């Protein structure tokens, strides 16, 4: 039973219920309207309640489904490396902050090269750096010359 309660679908449904509860309670602080059902709190509260109901149904379905025949087993790709995913997420957040310091060129070069290196089967720094330069050149050409859009500038480097 404990394993079923820790099932990802149950955890996700619980999160959904928590988010809905926050919205439902927060909606109570919104001003009322002359026509009660047409106030700013009505639609969010209906959506929150509906989400709670659906999440409870999901919990019920997950708890009553047979163990070992779960959908996520079918979904899970063989060899999917979650550590790489977390690493890329971390790098993306670092890129976002790094760009404000280092600017587009340097920030993107470091991000691209790091991404390429960690996702390569056989690490090849030269190839990683080379492909990053090509990507930067294409992005710069398209956004700066063709679209005349401003690329991010950094506090340390332009």
């Amino acid at each position, binding site marked *: 039973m404990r394993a079923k309660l820790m099932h990802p*679908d149950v955890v996700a449904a619980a999160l*959904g219920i928590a*988010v*809905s509860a926050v*919205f439902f309670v*927060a*909606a109570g602080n*919104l*001003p009322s*309207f002359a*026509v*009660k*059902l*047409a*106030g*700013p709190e*009505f*639609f969010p509260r209906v*959506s*929150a309640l*509906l*989400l709670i109901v*659906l999440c409870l149904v*999901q919990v019920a*379905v997950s708890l009553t489904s047979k163990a070992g025949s779960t*959908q996520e087993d079918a*979904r899970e*790709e*063989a*060899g*999917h*490396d979650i550590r*790489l*995913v977390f690493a*890329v*997420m971390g790098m*993306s*957040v670092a*890129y*976002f902050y790094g*760009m404000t310091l280092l600017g587009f060129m340097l920030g993107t070069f470091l*991000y691209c090269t790091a*991404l*390429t*290196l*960690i*996702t*390569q*089967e056989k690490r090849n720094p030269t190839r990683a750096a080379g492909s*990053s330069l090509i*990507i*930067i050149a294409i*992005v710069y050409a*398209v*956004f700066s010359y063709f*679209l005349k*859009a*401003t*690329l*991010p500038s950094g506090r340390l480097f332009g």
Partner: protein
Amino acid sequence: MSNPIIYALQAVFQPMNFLLMVAGAAIGIVFGAVPGLTATLAIALLIPFTMNLDAIPALLLLLAIYCGGMYGGSITAITIRTPCTPAAAATVLDGYPLAQKGQAGKAVGAALIASTFGGLVSAIIMIFLSPPLARFALAFSPAEYAAVGIFGLTAVFSVSGQSLLKGAISAVFGLLLSTVGLDPILPVPRFSFGSLALAGGIPFLPAVIGFFAMAEVFRLAGTPNRKQVVIKSIGRVWPTIDELKRILKTAVRGSLIGTWVGILPGAGGTIAAYMAYGEERRSSKHPELYGTGIIEGVAAPESANNAVSGGAMIPMLTLGIPGDAVTAVLLGALTIQGLQPGPMLFKDHVDVIYPIFAGMILANLIMFVVGFILIKPVTYIATIRKEYLVSAVAVFAVIGAFAESGSTLQVMFAVGFGVLGYFMEKYGFPVAPVVLSLILGPMIENALRQALIISHGSWGIFVTRPISAGLLLVSLGIIVAMVRRQLKDRSCGRAE
């Protein structure tokens, strides 16, 4: 505008617009063909490009990507048995066996001809059906608009994947997210929790880039590297006269099925492709040949899935309700251009509507030529190594999110939604319904509340007005039918 048809032709044949359509078709075909990329992703990444363009060139570019993307999936479906779009999965059934017999070129050529035919038929139907439907919708009151929005939400079922319950959870989550920001009727902030970033609501473009592009970057990063596939020679592409007749005969039925399915919000390209394939096999004198590698088995699903494009544009343009994930993103692109899809678009922006009509026809013709040229190159591009895809898509996504407003906050949203989207997809909660709801939520809420104001709080307004009642009944019918089908599929699965 003295003659709208001449105006439209002049617009689409302007050199820059024409070039944009050629580029769009090529981009769409490549994105449709490369595993890990989709037409929806292409449009999401390219919307920032279109912000500095005028409305017509922007829309022509995106339409060409849409048409190209629907065909592109067939190339790898046939050559390496990897359908890169769900709708191309039906093409594998006869396409790959044809490739195994050494007739990959014939299969790809059949897919291209059928796709073009399907796209053209649905574009023509769109041109004839849209104006009268828009005129009819001009008489809609808020009650009808609310019912239309709810009807549009049934499109969730076409993008929910295996679990309708999880798709519904995603959709309602999206409705909840759509309430963040300023209230549409009273100017009060909702659910910003003191944050300036949320005061304006969930920004659409970063949400789309996050859910479709960044989430895909994270997913691809964790996927093991594929074995490099060596694609043998494609062979002859152009069919014989007899084969051409068989392709076109099959494509007529597939196109009509696809257009009809595209109009219905609750169905999409995948359903259209399988329905057309099933119908073709059922009506064939030799049904036992289907699955062994026959040209009709490729032409049927391909004509249907491209015909969905024109069909899905009809409710999107006339009523403002997207029929699938791609039209949801296209609808967002129209809004970014300052155009509000719906009947007023046909009244106030005829100068945009007619070029869209002409553009859909021309986009399919351009797709035919570009598709023919790209058949062999795409089979090599499709084997591009994962690490280059990951870094290229990530950079374009981040810069695209930044370029909209020059704010790094948008990038934060895109990365955040990417993380959320990755985990949602990982555990079977599709993200397309969230995007659909982000678009439809404000429309439904606004119309619902206006209708209740008019009726002084009485819900009867939704059932006493015949169009509203009819749409709600049809929506309920679709929901019940879909739920029953899923329960039946589940119990059949258990019995096996």
